[in-house]
């Protein structure tokens, strides 16, 4: 198979093809065609070598896109790599090394890259200006979902994986003194200076090879080429134990206090044995030095987006690194000396240079002389006026050049098959700006350069707009030394460079900064001058944005989508600023830039997620008797961070049957519920009662020892935070119980108020949630069961009152007994140290076996408490609910001088505004159980604005054989029997408001003793 654009091995073997190994042949596929390559090629270089110029289609107009740039800033070369579960969409062809058998595919085209149907959008591009979609597809409203579905087919880039990503990812943490970002000449010198000064250094670079662009610049340092000099520097650093080199790692964001996120690409790159796909580094550096270099900018002329147009530096990189010629006959369009370097390299590599089109009025110097000596035609003050292609719009056939100024000019048509363009070099300032760094427009070098200083960060080299190598080396050495001084917090004598940079160092290079030029275009041509090649934003779009009032650079970005998407405007923002300044007739500096936000290059969600396969790292809290529950058919679910039994289905019985039998057991016999997840907090100390009186809205001070009460805890604004039982075991010892999901919240709340507001109160607040198991035994047979429990003194229970609390025993283990019940049936709650939980549970089940005891789950418990109208915090209440809304105003003390929320309760919004109140709901159809959160309407048809409330709890009650619900409903709609309509999957279902209890005390199985008449 012939590889038409691979430069032969005999041509300058020392200089050309430095990264490829011609002995190691590789085959991979692109769009199912086999592509021959060498080890060391990127997908981009291999495709170019084989004459495959088109790599993808653009986002909006589906124009052909090729390789503009060699690196991560390329706007057009997004492809998908791999197959099946290991396919990765939106990979840059320029950044992906080839490997044998690799499968790659183009994106955003149908049916094929070459014959993409959507390319016809391009013919009508004049009618698809910026904002077209916003203006066209908004009316009529009901068609918007249809528009969305259709437009989706044409929009976007790669397609998502249908299956789970099988790759593995991990996170690493690193603390260093000095972090150097960028491993070009400047970064290497910084790292060397900082480590020689005694600092621990890490250097990251997004490429696999360190040395930056030293291979494509011809300068010499100390009589060796820049590349050889850089290689020696890398060798020294690699041997230095104080330096951590991280190639293939992109620093994607700079955050507060020297925190940097960097993404290391592991598999398929230089470290093949790594089992991890990508590794996210979380680096904390005392000082960060940005040596991120600069990006060459493209030039603006009609059809400047055709695949055969490459940045000048890219052409040199393709030749020097991969021995790839972008074509056979090239035209060079330049605004600076960079184009001349490319011309000379092309001549050496045997590629014909047809003409240099130089936008400058004139130029002189060694480079110009060398080019002239080779007999190459140069025209100054000229530009490209038109690019002529074949019918496919993919292959360049010729260019038309002419004078830059004036319209008179003579034009020349030249045959060629590729074009080199070189505008100015824009410093890579993204990370500098992530943290609020300032920029200034530099008119001499036509770029935005960093100005000012930042804490813990500095910027050097071409990223700081210092391009001449002798200046750059010296600045970087000083920068490295200063960074080490700052990081270590002491003065350090500046070390002498291990290489001799001084004024006498022989450095031969020339300035590469140039000027941006905009060729004169007529209005007609504005439609074909592309500023953003990825998003198809033309000069016409920028003019339209300004005309329609989106003149600010931030508005322009949103309106036209310029600078959005994968490349984030790395090759378009600067040109756009110049054009905007031109349109608005103001200095470029006044246009400014859009905000630079992380990430610098796209990050995969898998990489951000890290090593969490199957969420193995997420741990749920376990009940102490969890094994018993599992062994006895419990169906578990995560509720409030705990793994808890929903219901027990031992003989694989149906869910509804299991729940019904559990409810019936409590109402008719006995049920045992594992409530160990309830929050339990011990309040100890002489001021305990005083403290609880300040935090709870309920009056607690007068609670006698051996008694408990129900209390509510409010936020300062008067809304409900939590509720629960407060029991007084001793004068100075209380145990408070919280809702399962709120145990941490309540503990933090009490701690905060104790520490900040009442530190003088002598109180200890201790969470004992995990220390005690807590079982709720309820139902008419409770007393009989406890009579046969070993060591338990049931006489105490027989004479007890509702809300009594006392100590008893199970064999010889201490028990705390509490006469409360959440089910409304007669019952007790038993607390036992967790290590005896299963013993007690089994003993209770055994004691109740003959009396039809059943274990009951969360589902049954919620039905039971709804039947008797007890609320569940956070389910029947939300952050706006005050006690009076849910009938708990009796629990708020009038007599206490102060408590949290006392004055928040009397805000206007709580007193004078209409409120939603908790009511019972009985659906007309007895079997229809509304969904949680279902909206409630005052009329049968659903209309926005008619919502008067929502369902908070809804269950089927086997006790009265019908559905019962609780709901928060706007108070003006509330009266006994009021008809409301509850939203369901189809339309609404009618229901009545019920203000009295759903079931009677007898039905609930409340205490048979007269002294308990007030409670269960």
């Amino acid at each position, binding site marked *: 198979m012939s590889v038409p654009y691979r430069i032969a091995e005999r041509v300058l073997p020392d200089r050309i093809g430095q990264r490829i190994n011609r002995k190691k042949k590789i085959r991979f596929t692109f769009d199912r065609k086999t592509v021959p390559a060498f080890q060391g090629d990127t997908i981009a270089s291999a495709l170019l070598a084989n004459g495959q110029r088109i790599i993808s289609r653009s986002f909006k107009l589906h124009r052909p896109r090729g390789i503009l740039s060699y690196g991560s800033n390329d706007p057009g070369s997004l492809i998908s790599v791999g197959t099946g579960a290991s396919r990765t969409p939106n990979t840059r062809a320029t950044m992906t090394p080839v490997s044998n058998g690799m499968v790659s595919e183009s994106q955003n085209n149908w049916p094929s890259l070459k014959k993409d149907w959507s390319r016809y959008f391009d013919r009508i591009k004049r009618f698809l200006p910026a904002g077209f979609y916003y203006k066209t597809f908004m009316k009529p409203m009901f068609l918007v979902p249809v528009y969305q579905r259709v437009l989706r087919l044409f929009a976007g880039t790669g397609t998502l994986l249908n299956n789970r990503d099988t790759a593995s990812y991990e996170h690493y943490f690193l603390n260093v003194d000095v972090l150097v970002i960028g491993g070009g000449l400047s970064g290497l010198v910084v790292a060397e200076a900082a480590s020689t000064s005694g600092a621990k250094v890490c250097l990251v670079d997004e490429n696999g090879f360190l040395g930056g662009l030293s291979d494509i610049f011809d300068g010499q340092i100390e009589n060796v080429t820049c590349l050889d000099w850089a290689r020696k520097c890398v060798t020294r650093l690699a041997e230095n134990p104080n330096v951590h080199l991280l190639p293939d790692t992109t620093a994607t964001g700079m955050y*507060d*206090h020297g925190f940097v996120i960097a993404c290391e690409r592991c598999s398929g790159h230089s470290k093949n044995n790594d089992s991890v796909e990508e590794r996210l580094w979380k680096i904390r550096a005392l000082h960060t030095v940005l040596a991120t270099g600069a990006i060459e900018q493209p030039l603006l002329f009609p059809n400047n987006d055709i695949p055969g147009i490459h940045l000048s530096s890219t052409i040199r990189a393709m030749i020097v690194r991969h021995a790839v010629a972008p074509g056979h006959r090239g035209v060079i369009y330049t605004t600076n000396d960079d184009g001349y370097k490319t011309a000379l390299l092309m001549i050496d590599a045997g590629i014909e240079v047809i003409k240099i089109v130089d936008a400058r009025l004139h130029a002189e110097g060694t480079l110009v002389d060398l080019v002239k000596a080779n007999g190459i035609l140069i025209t100054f003050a000229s530009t490209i006026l038109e690019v002529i292609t074949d019918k496919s719009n993919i292959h360049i056939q010729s260019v038309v050049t002419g004078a830059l100024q004036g319209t008179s000019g003579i034009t020349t048509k030249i045959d060629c098959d590729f074009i080199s363009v070189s505008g100015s070099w824009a410093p890579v300032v993204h990370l500098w700006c992530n943290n*609020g760094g300032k920029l200034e427009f530099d008119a001499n070098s036509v770029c935005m350069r960093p100005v000012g200083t930042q804490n813990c960060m500095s910027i050097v080299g071409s990223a700081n707009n210092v391009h001449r190598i002798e200046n750059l080396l010296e600045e970087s050495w000083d920068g490295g030394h200063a960074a080490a001084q700052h990081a270590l917090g002491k003065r350090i004598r500046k070390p002498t460079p291990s290489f001799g940079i001084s004024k006498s160092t022989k450095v031969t290079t020339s300035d590469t900064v140039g000027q941006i030029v905009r060729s004169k275009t007529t209005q007609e041509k504005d439609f074909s001058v592309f500023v953003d090649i990825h998003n198809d934003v033309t000069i016409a779009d920028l003019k339209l944005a300004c005309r329609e009032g989106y003149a600010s650079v931030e508005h322009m970005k949103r309106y036209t989508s310029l600078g959005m998407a994968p490349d984030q405007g790395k090759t378009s923002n600067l040109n756009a600023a110049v054009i905007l300044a031109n349109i608005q007739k103001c200095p470029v500096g006044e246009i400014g830039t859009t905000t630079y936000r992380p990430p610098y290059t796209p990050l995969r969600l898998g990489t951000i997620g890290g090593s969490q396969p199957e969420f193995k790292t997420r741990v749920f809290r376990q009940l102490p008797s969890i094994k018993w529950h599992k062994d006895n058919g419990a169906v578990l679910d995560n509720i409030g961070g705990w793994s808890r039994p929903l219901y027990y289905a031992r003989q694989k019985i149906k869910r509804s049957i299991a729940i019904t039998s559990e409810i019936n057991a409590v109402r008719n016999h006995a049920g045992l519920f594992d409530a160990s997840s309830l929050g339990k907090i011990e309040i100890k100390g002489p001021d305990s009662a005083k403290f609880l009186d300040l935090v709870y809205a309920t009056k607690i001070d007068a609670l006698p020892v051996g008694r408990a009460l129900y209390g509510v805890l409010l936020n*300062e*604004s008067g809304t409900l935070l939590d509720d629960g039982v407060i029991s007084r075991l001793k004068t100075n010892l209380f145990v408070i119980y919280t809702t399962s999901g709120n145990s941490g919240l309540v503990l933090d709340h009490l701690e*905060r108020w104790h*520490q*900040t507001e009442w*530190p003088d109160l002598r109180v200890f607040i201790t969470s004992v949630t995990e220390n005690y198991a807590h079982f709720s035994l309820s139902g008419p047979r409770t007393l009989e069961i406890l009579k046969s429990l070993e060591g338990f003194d049931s006489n105490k229970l027989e004479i007890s009152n509702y809300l009594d609390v006392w100590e008893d025993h199970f064999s010889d283990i201490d028990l705390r007994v509490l006469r409360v019940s959440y089910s409304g049936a007669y019952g007790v709650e038993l607390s036992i140290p967790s290590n005896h939980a299963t013993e007690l549970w089994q003993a209770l089940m055994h004691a109740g076996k003959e009396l039809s005891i059943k274990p009951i789950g969360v589902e049954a418990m919620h039905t039971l408490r709804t039947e008797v109208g007890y609320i569940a915090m956070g389910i029947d209440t939300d952050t706006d609910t005050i006690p009076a809304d849910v009938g708990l105003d009796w629990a708020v003390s009038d007599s206490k001088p102060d408590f949290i929320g006392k*004055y928040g309760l009397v805000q206007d919004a709580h007193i004078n505004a209409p409120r939603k109140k908790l009511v019972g709901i009985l659906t007309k159809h007895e079997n229809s159980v509304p969904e949680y959160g279902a909206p409630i309407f005052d009329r049968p048809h659903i209309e926005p604005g008619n919502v008067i409330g929502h369902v908070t709890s809804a269950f089927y009650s086997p006790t009265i054989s019908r559905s019962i619900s609780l709901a928060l409903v706007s108070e003006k709609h509330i009266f006994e029997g009021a008809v409301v309509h509850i939203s369901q999957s189809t339309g609404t279902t009618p229901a009545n408001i019920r203000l009295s209890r759903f079931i009677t005390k007898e039905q609930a199985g409340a205490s048979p003793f007269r002294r308990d008449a007030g409670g269960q």
Partner: protein
Amino acid sequence: MLQIKCPVCKIKGDETDFSYGGEAHIYKPGVTNGQPPNMARYLYIRSNPRGVQQENWRCSLGCNKWFTISRHTISQEILATYKLRETPHPNLSGKVKNI
């Protein structure tokens, strides 16, 4: 990602090791002349400065104590860290309200 040092247990950690508790030194009104205080200002109004803000943090994965830091809301610099009821750094005293 802020890096915070707890002034109580002296542990240094990322902001995710701590929890944020809002602006510090908000004056809590009491009952005056038998009239309930107007709580709106205390509950809902915050200064949200462009500059130094005093704010409460809790050493939630450490000693669990509340403390106060002076943070510059633009540069994110932490100018001082102090325990409850300690006076902030003297250079900042002019910028701190309601001490």
